[in-house]
């Protein structure tokens, strides 16, 4: 039903989105924590920067990534020299672009979950001998779980769908960066590519619906587990 190239695009899309979510999760939790629990000079700036990928055109984000993380960019050249890591034209770069685009969605969901945690419970845990870190891992985090799950799934879906940032930053390399969106784009330019494009479009639709469905179910399951249902 699907050609090898199309299957490759599908597998790559899933891989890239998964990596993007896994690596941005700790950062998202940290940022959500900072924004939810503290007041500091520059807080609104941090908030604005985190939300930029939501409001800026994706191509702008992609271009910015290229300038900073490209082989000649300040961080990109350091990465290449010190670790031999190159991001442009690679799946790691594609994951980076996807991660940046979906980061604000993850932070929003996690921040909401964090704000919903009863601080009285955290105080009670401290009186029972738990240090602040202990409280975070054994009380706060478990109670935030439904929100974290929801955030991850939304971010995964957004990462799957990215186009502008990916194509601008890491280009269209079959097998490395040609995710579903890029594959569909290529097919729409190709003569007689409509049938294949349609197949991939339907596939993307199915993935998106699956993600939403799973997100609902999982969030409810987790909520029951932590005694909120």
């Amino acid at each position, binding site marked *: 039903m699907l050609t090898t190239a199309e299957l490759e695009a599908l597998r790559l899309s899933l891989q890239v989105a998964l990596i993007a979510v896994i690596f941005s999760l700790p950062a998202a939790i940290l940022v959500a924590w900072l924004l939810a629990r503290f007041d500091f000079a520059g807080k609104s700036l941090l908030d604005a920067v985190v939300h930029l990928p939501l409001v800026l055109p994706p191509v702008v984000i992609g271009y910015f990534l290229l300038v900073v993380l490209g082989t000649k960019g300040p961080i990109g050249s350091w990465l290449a020299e010190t670790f031999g890591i190159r991001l442009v034209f690679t799946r790691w770069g594609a994951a980076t672009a996807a991660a940046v685009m979906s980061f604000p969605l993850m932070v929003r969901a996690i921040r909401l979950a964090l704000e919903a945690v009863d601080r009285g419970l955290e105080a*009670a845990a401290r*009186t*029972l*001998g*738990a*240090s602040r870190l202990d409280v975070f891992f054994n009380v706060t985090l478990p109670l935030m779980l439904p929100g974290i799950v929801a955030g991850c799934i939304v971010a995964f879906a957004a990462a799957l769908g990215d186009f502008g940032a990916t194509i601008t930053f890491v280009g269209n390399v079959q097998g490395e960066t040609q995710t579903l969106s890029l594959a569909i784009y290529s097919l729409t330019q190709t003569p007689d590519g409509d049938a294949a494009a349609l197949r991939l479009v339907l596939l993307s639709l199915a993935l998106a619906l699956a993600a939403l469905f799973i997100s609902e179910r999982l969030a409810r399951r987790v909520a029951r587990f932590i005694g909120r249902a």
Partner: protein
Amino acid sequence: MSPQDRLKGEFPFGGTARSAKGAPMSDRLRFDVLKRLGDFAFECDLDLPLAGLVALFGASGAGKSTLINLVAGLLQPDAGRIAIGPDVFFDAKERVRLPIEKRGLGVVFQDARLFPHLSVRANLMFGFKRAGARVLAPQVTFDAVVELLGLATLLERRPHTLSGGEKQRVALGRALLAQPRLLLMDEPLASLDASRKAEVLPYIERLRDEFAIPILYVSHSLDEVLRLATTLVLIERGRVVAAGSVAEVLALPHAQPFIGGGGAGALLFATVQSHDEHYALSTLACDGFTLRVPRLDASIGMRLRVRIPTREVALALARPSDVSISNRIEGVIDRVQASDMAGTYAEARVRVGPSAVLSATVTRESAERLALAPGLRVWCLVKSVALDAGALAAARGSVATPVALREPANDERLRVDDPPR
């Protein structure tokens, strides 16, 4: 004779600060703190031995919860010092601030605060697992707590499936299992309805008597305080008004506004002396006199607290014989004063034993008619019918702590002495 002289060394139930289990002399809480809360300044200077159940009583907003939160570390003082025994929790000058988790306290909150993502068992063990070296020779074991608080059937359940009363019992158990050196209870029964309160209260009594862990108990309910407290501290707007044993404090004139004129009445300690099966009555031995009460389900020798509402006490100048009232107690009037603004009532305080005081509310007219005055010998008449189960409560186990009562001068530091060994 000042109250101090009168009372020193004459506490009827023993003069040593020892719990029923013979634990050694208790730690003292030294609390000298200033905390600004909005436009209200909380200032409190307190020096208390921690043994039995110390009740902090006062109206809402008096600062009782603030005190508990400061001791627990949930609030930080602006200035001052807090220490329990040799351990300093906070010292503004020395810049000491012990974090909450290192204070070794157990806190029971008004809203239970059980962790919803853990089972009852896991909740109970939460503090136990973090008690460090203290669990090597635990003062409180899991099985003892489960048995004492009746939690066996609840262990594998989740908090959201429990009733309010059950939640509070688990909260009590959880705080106990953290092996605390002091239990802080901040109005633990306030959010429960009457029947739940009645369900949980006996567990707190048991807890007080079974474990040698001192309790600092905050409440605005006189009922709870009278039933549970061994030491009573009255707080108003952040200042300590009086502190001492329950009986003593309640007998103080400036404690009356807290108690509400005529409501609570006197508190006496008594021992069950005998039961009269024929008449279904029991006799209680008090300090120098006896009381006849409806038949109790209590064993001989059991110690009880008896509350005698002031409206149930009538006065006579001579011992009446042709009257239905069974309890006729001889005493000497300590003081008489008008007790309301309209001038209808007068309250007479009568000393009926070395440390037992009864208060009687009579009409001012009667007081003048009988020429009631300090020093006058009178008879207090108390109907047995008035002394039903509601007026009686257990007073087992560790009881005999704070003794010498002092009424503080305005700025004087209030210290409650340990009784002489």
